[in-house]
Structures are given as structure tokens and as C-alpha cells.
């Protein structure tokens, strides 16, 4: 069976959930081979084996010193050497860029924001703010596919070897032209990451100020990530990286709670594929209610604290 390359997302050796989703999808297509960049593979290997990685290609951390290009070189080289059947990455902003450059190198087509992929590498997409479902496939070269987090249900496999193989990497001069000279982490607290979280609680203009504690408290009671509408981000009430929607992050959690968000099409584009949607809005006509599995027409400043208290009570 041909290898399917899966680019691993990890933080300090901790494999992200989306990688287990990609490995699960890769098993439909062929034999999953994880591609690990940087240190920490010792702590991540068990998780890769559990979800079916037969091999783990390990590339040195130096690959991270330059923007995107060295990772594309790495994936293109492995795809050629191993005769890969497909390359899967998670659909984050950076990984989509890696997918694009890799496709150019391989003379392949690329498909991004995929919500499902089958054994023939036919992909499913939710487009136009969730209004239309399309299926697509790559017609030229090795398919390069970027899959949205939380789209595939991860399933453990039995007895994969996750055999480590170091990859000799020689980064070309052309790939060294954009150099990362500093990484700046902005405080984000102990909450799960937005695109990965199983539950997201988002606040909109209805929150009324930069005091987001009503949203954060509910999120914390559920172990959820916090999101925000663009109106909130534009007002400077909450940082940019938490924006959900067309020009923000696309999330697809099991539960999405929208507090004081009207549900504009551009917001919906980023959350419409959530499995369950709960909305609190004082306007019964708010379009968000069209999507809600459960909606409360009321003031979020009384409903959300009561909900938080109830959840904490029932724990």
C-alpha cells in the first residue's frame, strides 16, 4: 500500500488532536506516514502509533527557522522518494501555505478547507458560508489536501509500528530567503486552542464592552475555547487571533455557543459546521437563531451567568 504523508502538528512533543484525525483519514487512502518537524518526537510517537502511523519521518528543527519554504521542500522530497499516494495537512493558515508551495513543487493540485476525504481522495467542502456542499478531487499529480480540524472523528488503530526514520534535510538557499528572527507569544491563558477545541463559546457586540468575563466564565465552566465576532475584534474588545468567521478562524466544534452575536453570513462561514449550536440573543429575529439547536431570547448578561452557575452546580 502506498504511503500517505501526514504533517504532524505538535506543541513541545504533544501531538495535536487534528493530527490523530488526519491519521484516521489517511488510513482510508493508504499507509499513514507521519512527518515530524523539530524536537520531541519521543513524547509524540505513542500517539502517532495509536492512530495508525506505520512510519515517522523526523526532520530537524532548523526547518522551522524559515517561513514555510523548507517544509514544502521536505514534503515534496518525501512524496517523490516514497511515491506517496497523497499528502494531508491540517487546514491552518500556515499549513495551507505549505500545501500550496508543495503542490507547486510537485506539479500537483491542492485542495484546502476539506471537511471530509474518502479512499479515492475525493474531498468534501462546505462553501459559501456553509450554504453549498461540493465534492472535488485533484486531477494532476500527488493530491495535496488540507483538512479542517474537527472534521474527521479520530479512531485508534491496532498495532501500528510508528518506526522512526531520520530525514536528511538540506535546505536550499532559495528556501532561506525569509528568516524567522523572533517568535512572540501573546498571552492566551490555559484555555484550549480555538480551532482545536471541542467546545467554543463566542461573544459578539452584545457583550457590550471589553469586559469579556461573562463569556470567559461560561467557557471555563465547559472547558471551552473563547471566540469573538469581528465586531468585537474591530472594537478592540478582544484580540484578533480569536476572531471566528470568514476572515477569522474556521471552527467546527461539537458545541458552539454564541452570546450576543447576530449571525451575519461572514460569521456563519466560520462556525456553521459546528455539530451543536446554542445561541443567546435579545433579538428574536437574529439570524443566528436559524442555525441554533437551542436558543434563548434574552439578555446574555443574565442568561449566561445563570447557565455558568448551573453547569458548575451540576459538575
Amino acid at each position, binding site marked *: 500500500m502506498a504511503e500517505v504523508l501526514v504533517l504532524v502538528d505538535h506543541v513541545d512533543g504533544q501531538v495535536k488532536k487534528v493530527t490523530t484525525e488526519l491519521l484516521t483519514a489517511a488510513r482510508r487512502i493508504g499507509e499513514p506516514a507521519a512527518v515530524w518537524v523539530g524536537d520531541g518526537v519521543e513524547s509524540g510517537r505513542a500517539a502517532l502509533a495509536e492512530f495508525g502511523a506505520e512510519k515517522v519521518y523526523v526532520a530537524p528543527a532548523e526547518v522551522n527557522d524559515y*517561513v514555510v*519554504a523548507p517544509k*514544502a521542500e521536505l514534503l515534496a522530497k518525501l512524496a517523490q522518494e516514497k511515491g506517496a499516494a497523497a499528502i494531508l495537512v491540517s487546514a*491552518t493558515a*500556515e499549513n*495551507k*501555505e505549505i500545501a*500550496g*508551495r508543495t*503542490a507547486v*513543487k510537485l506539479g500537483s*493540485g*491542492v485542495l484546502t*478547507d476539506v471537511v471530509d476525504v474518502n479512499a479515492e481522495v475525493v474531498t468534501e467542502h462546505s*462553501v*459559501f458560508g456553509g450554504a*453549498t*456542499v*461540493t*465534492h*472535488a*478531487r*485533484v*486531477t*494532476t499529480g500527488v493530491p495535496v489536501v488540507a483538512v479542517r480540524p474537527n472534521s474527521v472523528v479520530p479512531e485508534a488503530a491496532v498495532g501500528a509500528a510508528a518506526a522512526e526514520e531520520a530525514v536528511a534535510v538540506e535546505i536550499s538557499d*532559495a528556501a532561506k*530567503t525569509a*528568516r*524567522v*528572527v*523572533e*517568535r*512572540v*507569544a*501573546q498571552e492566551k491563558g490555559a484555555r484550549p486552542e480555538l480551532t482545536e477545541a471541542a467546545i467554543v463559546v463566542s461573544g459578539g457586540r452584545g457583550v457590550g464592552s471589553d469586559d469579556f468575563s461573562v463569556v470567559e466564565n461560561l467557557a471555563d465552566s465547559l472547558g471551552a475555547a473563547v471566540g469573538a465576532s469581528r465586531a468585537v475584534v474591530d472594537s478592540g474588545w478582544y484580540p*484578533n*487571533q480569536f476572531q471566528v468567521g470568514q*476572515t477569522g478562524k474556521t471552527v467546527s466544534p461539537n*458545541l458552539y455557543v454564541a452570546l450576543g452575536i447576530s449571525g451575519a*453570513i*461572514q460569521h456563519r462561514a466560520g462556525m456553521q459546521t459546528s455539530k*451543536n*449550536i*446554542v445561541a443567546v440573543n435579545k433579538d428574536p429575529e437574529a439570524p443566528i437563531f*436559524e442555525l441554533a*439547536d*437551542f*436558543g434563548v*431570547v*434574552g439578555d446574555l448578561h*443574565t*442568561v*449566561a451567568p*445563570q*447557565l*455558568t*452557575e*448551573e*453547569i458548575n452546580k*451540576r459538575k
Partner: protein
Amino acid sequence: MNIVVLVKQVPDTATERKLNADDRTLDRAASDGVINELDEYAIEEALLLKEKHGGEVTILTMGPDQATDSIRKALSMGADKAVFVNDEALHGSDAIQTAYALAQALGTLEFDLVVLGSESTDARTGVVGAALAEYLGLPQLTLAGKVDVDGGAIRIQRQTDYGYDVVEAQLPAVVSVVEKINEPRYPSFKLIMQAKKKPVDKKSAADAGIDTGRVGLANATTETVDFAAAPPRAAGTIVKDEGDGGTKAADFLAEKKFV
């Protein structure tokens, strides 16, 4: 410093968007065309850089006839001139083909910097900037929340999940912007009038150095197999808060096993 800004015309997200039943490409007649919103930030950033460092701002658009509306808008924001690559052979090009075609067109222009949006609201592929840098063999400075140019050196803040990376390179380079970078200006009446007289250089695919055997639907690297309206969501339960709205929501979450 000469800057080329890549501007794409997209269907207005506020209108209903459709695909053509026959070739499964975007139905451009179904909705009004507008400038891809992120591209306004790209234009603004180019204008700010020009104000600081001098030079010229050129708009480069590839698209159907209607895209001239977006070109005029870009010129009325203050760009100096435009190049419009317009050829039936380009219809149906996918992201990789678009990047190839834009790279070829850029090859016919002189520039120190290419600025583009980080994503279009219709295709939403987010790959054009990276693929373009690959084709051109230029530094990729994408997802920029801040751009500083100093002589031949350029430094950006690249948005990441954890905050940002500081990235450095030498010009010429490809920069894509995120929307927090600036606040796009509104065209003044005077600029709108002036824009009508600014030159728009219309090019065929061949003029732009594009091999028509590599672009368009017939040569696409990807194919839309089918499409359908998304199944409607089952109608939910909506309650009015009568002092117990939070409790009722908690009951729903308990029923769904979230608490």
C-alpha cells in the same frame, strides 16, 4: 519603491452565491462583484509604503470583464495605474493555476514588492501568496500584521496561533496582509474623478507571458465533481428567557451530554 498590489474581484458575500450547473465554476452573474475585502487592506498598505518611501503603486487583476469595477475602486483609493489580465482562456483556473498566471504577469512588470490579501472570500484557499512566492523564487512574507521597509530590507510581523513571528528578508518580496494591519481609506471625490483618467493596461494571456496550455478549466489541477445545497439544519428549540433561560440551556447541554 515600486509596488504591485494583487486585487481580485469576488461576489459580494452579502448576496446569494452560486455555482454554474454546466461547468461547476463560480456563477459571476448571480451576484454583484466587489473587491475582495482583504485586498483593500493590501492596497492601503501599499499606499502607506508609497507615502513613506516614494515610488508607484500598480494594481494587477486577473479576471472577467466586470473586474474593471474593482480596478476603478482600487485606483480611486490612490493607486497610480493598473494592469488587467483578461482572457477567456483563464476562465476556471484553480488556485495553483492562478498563482502561475499571476507570477507570469508579474514577470512582465518591474517591482520591489508584491502585496496581496491573505485570503479571498470566495475561493478561500489561502494559497495564492505562498504559491506565488514559490513560482517567483522570492521571499515569502505572508500573513503580515505589520510591515517595515528600510532600504533594501523588509521586516514583518507574521500572524501565528500563538501571537506572531518577526520575519526578515531582502527586497523584492511577496507580502500578504491580514486585516488588523491598517484601516483602508475611503476614496475622496477628487480621487474618484482622477481615477477615471488613470491608465489601465489590458493584457491577453499571451501578452502577460501566460502559457494558455497551463491555465483554465480544461487544464485545471483540481476538479469539482459535484455540488448541492447544504441540507437544512433541523429547526431548533427557541425559548424566551423568563428568568430561567440559563437553566433551560443547561438542561439542553445536559441532555446532549456536555455537562
